[in-house]
């Protein structure tokens, strides 16, 4: 359904050229759910914007390809992607216009991208409101954003993302602004809609727990490169890349003490040569600093960008 191949994105600013994404590749099959995880600055948002076709200011022409349904949407936006990629934003409080009615905001999207009359569109929206379990679906059309709670607004935005019958839904941390109890309901809703409608889902998150509950497979990004990719269960239970291993080891579910990965994520304008994780890696060898390690396929649909993935980590790896 979606195939990202060797995507490179650079952004030029007065502080220099920043390599935001380098050689990023992954694929989501039809009906598949893929999670993108990584810490701030790893390129999650830029990847998402590249797929949505809204490149940040100062971005140079990206290299590589993003194939959607077989057509490259990176170079030719007008292709098949219009209205067929739905987007669920991060913050339901900032993503709706406070002075327009909920129904009108979705009608505006449909007028541009969906065939049919206004009455058809309205019927469709009510049906979607029912599907996302908004109370009083007909009445909700005429309500303003402030009349909904945070969880209801996120339901509204999910309905908006589905309005033009997308084949792929891209969600950018859709539950970080919500309470855990609401988060659980929204995640359950997303899981159900994806299964019922046969959608493909690209889900950006930094929370491994959320990832485990929604995504079949996962791609771990570090400093703009793919560290590791594979089926979620396998990656979480048996991580291979030293970064993934260390990150999961400091997850509160797995670590009793307060340890973290030493050092910080490098600035995008000052990426280290070779493997970008090597300055923080406890098992780095001299060759790690010379050439970026390629993503090597492993059995079971997994791949890892570290030649030393079988080396055990020392006891004191976390500090």
């Amino acid at each position, binding site marked *: 359904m979606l195939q990202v191949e060797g995507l490179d994105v650079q952004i030029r600013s007065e502080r220099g050229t920043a390599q935001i994404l380098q050689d990023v590749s992954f694929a989501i099959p039809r009906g598949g759910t893929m999670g993108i995880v990584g810490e701030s600055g790893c390129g999650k948002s830029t990847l998402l914007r590249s797929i949505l076709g809204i490149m940040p200011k100062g971005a140079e022409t990206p290299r590589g390809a993003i194939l959607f349904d077989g057509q490259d949407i990176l170079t030719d936006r007008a292709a098949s992607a219009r209205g067929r990629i739905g987007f669920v934003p991060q913050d339901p409080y900032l993503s709706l216009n406070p002075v327009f009615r909920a129904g009108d905001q979705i009608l505006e999207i449909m007028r541009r991208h969906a065939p049919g009359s206004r009455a058809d569109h309205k019927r469709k929206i009510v049906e979607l409101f029912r599907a996302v379990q908004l109370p009083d679906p007909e009445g909700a059309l005429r309500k303003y954003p402030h009349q909904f709670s945070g969880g209801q607004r996120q339901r509204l935005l999910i309905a908006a993302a589905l309005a033009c019958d997308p084949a792929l839904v891209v969600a950018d941390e859709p539950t970080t602004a919500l309470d855990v109890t609401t988060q659980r309901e929204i995640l359950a809703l997303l899981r159900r809609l994806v299964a019922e409608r046969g959608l493909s889902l690209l889900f950006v998150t930094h929370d491994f727990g959320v990832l485990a509950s929604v995504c079949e497979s996962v791609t771990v990004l570090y400093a703009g490169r793919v560290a590791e990719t594979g089926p979620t269960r396998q990656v979480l239970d048996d991580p291979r890349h030293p970064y993934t291993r260390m990150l999961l080891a400091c997850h509160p*579910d797995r670590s009793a003490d307060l340890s973290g990965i030493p050092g910080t994520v490098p600035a995008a304008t000052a990426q280290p040569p070779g493997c970008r994780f090597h300055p923080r890696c406890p098992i780095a060898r001299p060759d790690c600093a010379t050439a970026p390690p390629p993503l090597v396929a492993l059995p079971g649909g997994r791949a890892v960008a570290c030649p030393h993935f079988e080396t055990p980590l020392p006891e004191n790896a976390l500090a």
Partner: protein
Amino acid sequence: MPEIIGAEALSVELGAKRGLLKNRPGVTAVDGVSISVNEGETFGIVGESGCGKTTLARTLLGLQRESAGRITLQGADVSRSGRVGREAVQYVHQDPGAALDPWWRVGATLAEGLKIHGVADSAERQARIRDMLAAVGLDPALAERYPHELSGGQQRRVGLARILLLRPRVVILDEPTAGLDLSVQAAVLRLLRDMREKFGLTYLFISHDLSVVRRVCDRVAVMYLGRVVEEGSAAELFAAPRHPYTRALLAAAPRLDGAETGPALPGDPPSLRAVPSGCRFHPRCGLATPECATRDPVPETAGPGHSVACHRWRDAA
């Protein structure tokens, strides 16, 4: 350990307006809350947004006037006094970037608090700033930088240094790890723990991240719609939660193994303008009986230092 700060039957009304012809009633954001925080401990307050945890913190701090009840600090009654007499209680802002003036060098921001607190000698201010920056693990030369030149982790350390310079006894931490990455979060929590030991601090730790609360807090109070519904040691509360709301809250946190424990909690908390009768949680509670809708539960002892306000906690286990 003696109590350092406490509240007794504390109520806070927000948003009341006195008009010319009619008075508009406010909402009771904190309704009869009693807590007692011991010296040297980390006391966690958890709950969904709108449960009153931030209002409770602001009231203990003296930024918000209580409408009823009593606040004691180090044995003295400080109710209705505002910030006067509460210099020993300080607050670390949730967003450290927003709490620093972008036009001021870090050193100037740090010195301002000292000036207000009566440290008149410039040389002494500079010496104390240098020492404190080193204590929170920063290069003292950072005092010459502007906030935008610092990373998120560094800004958080500066935010903490700014408060610790004032030599508080009680520090209120509002969501101290919100928005931090997993690998950085541990470093911030470790710093907080080290500072608590070094300066003999007591923390009031407000958070909705239960996994963090579990790791750093000694005791925890769970709030729902302005009330404390359960309170106990972190170890006991997480191992054997008694209140149905606490159980639902714990079950809702996503887990690494992808397992879902217990039923979901449907719907949103009701508005403070329409607080349900009886037990405030009964419309969302799976164990509610007709009694729950009529009679307000009082806290009962469920174990040593463990109290729960629920008619049916014995059936919940």
